[in-house]
Structure formats: structure tokens, C-alpha cells
């Protein structure tokens, strides 16, 4: 298994009453409520926790990027990736992911990735994402071309990582008269690309068609089998047999010395009034042209208050469904073990701390995860045959899969 530590890096010191008063905690929630003194303290605490996670034997540390909201203090994925490349020793730096279409330069991402891969001595996983809809508003990147830009930026990124420059690029959305960055990725043919997502069928199929592992971001357990079926069908269509090495799962998992103490910390996963990305408006989450036309009516109904918005379940429901796991180490091992049995991911991101869990309790969570939970989960994973892409040394993508291993099935056969 590949076991990874994650925290969203909450700006937990923001005044919650102001968020409730404003009725929103994203996009337009004023940054006058951001206290940089507290921000500095929180960054230093996260740094200590990451170093502990590395020392305690996590296989990786996951970082991400979001904007204009207290739920995440990482507006540039490259910054924390760079810090981790320098201060950690063994853990892989798992970027989930670089928001390729949001910025105007895939070349800049390629340069960042090459630098990070070399500085970390080949410990980078350069995941990629479209970026959430509301990021398009915060960064002012046209949402109507987001998917096209994602596809093109990906193609260019892979070309930069795997082919010699100089070359020129004349795409629909990106043009370069010279592509010749004087930095190259250390891992060959390139760092692994993983694709995280919630439940977008288009993205799941895209990831499968490229043979990139899909990391399900805390998707409800009852939907996960359908997610993997969508992935597996697409994988077989393009000619390879998918397995646990193609599957990742991000799970809110808080550990403390006692179940009662862990419940206190676990409830902090609900801190943004229970919403994953804070309270926003549906028309920010799905700006024009961002979502699939197949969901146009539903999303437009939601945007205009004519269909119920999906709100998070209660803490009790989420723990009952194992979408949040909180407890003493043994309880967490048992519950996560059950998830490994049913979802069979080989990549597991343990989202340890959120909300106002303080540094002391966060450190204790990291310690208990690292010392007690991770070794047991590794054993369970082994017993279930959950081998990660690193253990199996799988090709990084379909493009770099030896041709004799590829045997596409006609779509009709799959449908039958």
C-alpha cells in the first residue's frame, strides 16, 4: 500500500461568527478576517507535523491548492511542495494536484515540477486537476474552456517532460515560440501523474484512459463501487486490466489516545458548517461552461434555488457511513481495514486533522497514525493484495505501457 498524510491546512483562526453572519465562507468572504500573525503560527505548526509524518514512515505527504477561503491555506501548490522537497527525507510529495487550466502557463508548471523532482531526489508525484469551479472565479480563468485547457496543458506537460527541446507549441489555448526549459525531471520517463476528483464521470474516464490512478476524494462509500466500475470499464476499453494500483482514496481519519478524545477532534471535520469547501453559492461551484452539459439543468436549478443543494450529512451519519473515521488506533485500524476490504484502493490518503484541532492534538494524531495505524494498515493491505504502483513498478501511463501489454477491447464487447 501507499499510505499518505494529508491536511487541508485550515485557517482555523478565522472568526467563524463572521462567516455565519456573511452566510458565505468562500470567494467573496472578506480577507480582512485573515490574521497573518495566526497564519504564520499555523504554517509553522503544519511544517512540524509534516516533518513528523516523514520521520514516522508515511509513504507520502499530500498537498493541494485552493483560493479565497479559510478551509485551505495553500493558494500555491508549488510553495509547500518546495518546502517539503527540502525538509523531508523519504516521503513522496504528492501534489493533488497542479491546477493546470487555471493558469496561462503549463510551461511554468513543467519547470516547477522538474525543479521539485530534482530537489526532492525523485520523490515527486505530480498530480493534476482541472481546479474546482470557484477557483476559476478567484483566479479569473475562463471556466468555459477549463476542460479543453486541461487536456491541452496535460499534453504539453507530458511532451515537455519526455521530449528534448527546443520545440514550439501552437495549441488552441497555449502557444510558445520556444519550449526549452533548462530543468528536466529526474524520474523517468516522468514523475507519476495521479488524478484526484470527487465524482465526475468525465474525469474518471479520462484518468482511466490515460492509466493514471484516480484518487477518490472522500466520495460517499455507497457510490464508490460505481466509480470504480466506470474506471475499470474505460481501462479495459483502452486495453489494460485495472487493479488496486489504479485506485486511491482520501479518507478523513482522526486518531487520538481514546475514542472520546478522537470524537472531539473528528467533529472538527465539520468545522466549515459541514461543507468540504466552506459555504459558497452553487453558481460559484459550477460557473458557466465548467460542468458537463448533461448536468446543465440540475446545476442551473440548484443555482437558482429550484433544486436542493447537496449539503453534507451529519457527523453521526458520516461516521456511520465511514466517510469520517475517528477513534483510538485500534478502532481506526478496524474501520479503515473494512474500507480497504470493500473499496480495495492501494493508495490511501489519511486526512488526519482539520478545523480547530490544535497543534498538540494534531501532532498526537500524526504520531498515532504513523506508529500504530500505518504499520497495521500496511499488513492488511498486503493480506488483501493491495499493491501500489510503486510496489508493482507499473508504467506511469498508457502512453508508456509497452505495446505488447495493451489489448483494447471494442466498446461493444464491454456493453454486452
Amino acid at each position, binding site marked *: 500500500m501507499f499510505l499518505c498524510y494529508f491536511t487541508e491546512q485550515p485557517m482555523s483562526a478565522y472568526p467563524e461568527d463572521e462567516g455565519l453572519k456573511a452566510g458565505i465562507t468562500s470567494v*467573496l468572504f472578506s480577507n480582512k478576517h485573515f490574521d497573518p500573525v495566526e497564519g504564520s503560527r499555523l504554517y509553522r505548526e503544519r511544517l512540524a507535523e509534516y516533518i513528523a509524518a516523514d520521520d514516522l514512515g508515511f509513504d507520502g505527504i499530500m498537498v493541494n491548492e485552493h483560493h479565497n477561503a479559510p478551509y485551505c491555506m495553500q493558494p500555491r501548490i508549488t510553495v509547500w511542495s518546495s518546502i517539503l522537497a527540502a525538509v523531508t527525507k523519504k516521503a513522496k510529495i504528492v501534489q493533488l494536484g497542479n491546477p493546470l487550466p487555471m493558469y496561462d502557463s503549463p510551461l511554468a508548471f513543467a519547470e516547477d515540477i522538474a525543479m521539485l523532482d530534482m530537489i526532492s531526489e525523485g520523490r515527486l508525484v505530480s498530480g493534476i486537476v482541472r481546479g474546482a469551479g470557484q477557483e476559476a472565479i478567484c483566479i479569473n480563468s475562463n471556466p468555459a*474552456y477549463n476542460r479543453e485547457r486541461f487536456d491541452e496543458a496535460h499534453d504539453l506537460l507530458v511532451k515537455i517532460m519526455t521530449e528534448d527541446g527546443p520545440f514550439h507549441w501552437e495549441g488552441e489555448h497555449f502557444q510558445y515560440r520556444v519550449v526549452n526549459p533548462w530543468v528536466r525531471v529526474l524520474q523517468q520517463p516522468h514523475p507519476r501523474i495521479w488524478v484526484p476528483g470527487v465524482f465526475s464521470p468525465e474525469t474518471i474516464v479520462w484518468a482511466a484512459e490515460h492509466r493514471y490512478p484516480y484518487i477518490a476524494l472522500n466520495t460517499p462509500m455507497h457510490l464508490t463501487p460505481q466509480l470504480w466500475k466506470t474506471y475499470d470499464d474505460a481501462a479495459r476499453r483502452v486495453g489494460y486490466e485495472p487493479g488496486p494500483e489504479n485506485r486511491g482514496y482520501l479518507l478523513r481519519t482522526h486518531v487520538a489516545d481514546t475514542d472520546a478524545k478522537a470524537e472531539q477532534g473528528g467533529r472538527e471535520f465539520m468545522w466549515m458548517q459541514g461543507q468540504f469547501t466552506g459555504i459558497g453559492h452553487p453558481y460559484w461551484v459550477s460557473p458557466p*461552461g465548467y460542468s458537463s452539459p448533461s448536468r446543465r439543468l440540475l446545476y442551473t436549478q440548484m443555482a437558482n434555488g429550484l433544486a436542493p443543494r447537496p449539503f453534507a450529512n451529519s457527523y453521526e451519519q458520516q461516521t456511520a457511513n465511514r466517510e469520517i473515521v475517528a477513534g483510538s488506533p485500534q478502532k481506526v485500524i478496524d474501520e479503515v481495514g473494512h474500507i480497504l476490504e470493500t473499496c480495495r484502493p492501494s493508495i490511501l490518503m489519511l486526512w488526519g486533522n482539520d478545523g480547530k484541532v490544535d497543534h498538540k492534538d494534531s501532532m498526537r494524531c500524526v504520531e498515532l497514525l504513523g506508529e500504530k495505524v500505518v504499520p497495521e494498515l500496511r499488513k492488511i493491505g498486503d493480506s488483501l493484495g493491495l499493491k501500489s504502483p510503486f510496489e508493482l513498478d507499473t508504467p506511469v501511463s498508457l502512453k508508456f505501457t509497452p505495446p505488447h501489454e495493451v489489448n483494447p477491447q471494442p466498446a461493444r464487447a464491454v456493453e454486452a
Partner: protein
Amino acid sequence: MQEFSSTVAGLTIRGVRGGEGHPVVVVHHSFGHPGPLRFYEELAAHHAAWVPDLPGFGASDRPDWARHPRDLAIILGHFLRREGLTRAALVGMGFGGWVVAELATMAPELLSHLVLVGAAGLLPEEGRIFDQILVSHSAYVSAAFNDRDVYTRLYGDPPTDDTLITWDVNREMMTRVAWKPYMYNRQMAPLLCEVNVPTLLVWGDADAIVPRVCAEQYQRLLPDARLEIVADCGHAVDMERPTELAELVARFVTS
């Protein structure tokens, strides 16, 4: 009014037309229109009224390649030539006003008259153009009305699924061509001095979408423009004051 379709640059342009006389072509708001309006009927009583859906809006095909309202203006110009409307009065509503103004800068000879109603296209010297991206479709469209009852009568309460889909399709097309900078073009203002076409500017005095100062800026920049303010009226003058606007246009075109 009857439906028409026309093919320009491989795209089918659909819309409604009716009446006889001097051609008057109406170009809709960014949110389109809720079917044939009384304004169109009243125009058609005295003119050959044409109301095309802009490319990518309503029932017209989307030019996937279009990246700017100027691209829509080019298609609109070819549409006018294709249909023989080469000395037409062009009436642009809001976003449609921007498209028409762009066309006027590149082919003023196509226009007999220019009517800009709450037109976007210029960066306001004060205030800003209401940003629909930050609000829901219904919040934006209703903000175009000073009289909420007119909005409700035209769009329903709640709006139908068909209305929602039309709003979203139109909002997506607006986004494809006018996301950034939003609703203005710094490259248009310096060309407006070449638009030697009699121009009527019409603004609702309670326009909450395009600030009134834009009317004054257009008046300064265009060689032959006068301004009419419609009292107690919002941005959607065509829907709130159809008779008054039709009369203003008719008087202007026949003068």
C-alpha cells in the same frame, strides 16, 4: 412574427422577423429574450423587424472558435449582407449593444442608424458593470428590471426549466467571449469616432446593470449621438417599456 434561419460561416442563425418597411435589426441582451416580445411586434408595425439570436445564443449555432464579441459582430455583419439588410437600423440591448457598436466601428456603411440601449462595451469611468458571474441567473435577469412584476410576468415565478436552460446556454456563450475583461473592450473606444452614423442612446434611469456614465461616454465618443433617458425604468427597456422604446426607435429611424 415568423421564424427564420440563415446560414453564415457554416452556422445556422435563427430568429424571428415580421413587418415591412425600413429594416430594423434588434440584437438581444446577454441573457437573450423570453420569446417574441411586444417590443418586436410594435417595431414590426412600421418596419421590417429582424431579431436574430446571436451565434451561440438561443437557437443559433455556436461558433466554437469565437473568443470575443467582435467575432460575433463579424458574423452579424455577414448575416446582414446575406439577408440584404445592408442599410439597416441596428438596435442593441445591453451586451447586444456592445456587439452592434463593434460592428459599427468596422462596417459603419452597413448601418442607417445605430440605437444603443443600456449598451455594454465601455469601461465605466465610475462604478462597474453588474457582474452576472457572481450571482444566480434569476438574480441577474431580475436585476435588469426596475418593475419586478414585469420580470415575473415575462419569466414566470419560478422560471421554467426551458428558461433556466436558455439562461445557462446564453451565460456560457457570454462567458466564452466576454469573461475577461468583463463586458468592455479597451480597443473599441478609440474607433467610435469613425462611426458616422446617426446614433440614439437610450438608458433606463434605474439601470442597475450598465452605469449611466457609459451613456455619457458613448455620447462623447460617437460623432452624432443623442441620449434619451427613460424614467422609472431598469436595464431591460425593451421589456419594461416596449411601446415607448418602439416609438423612440420609430421616430429616430423616420426622422
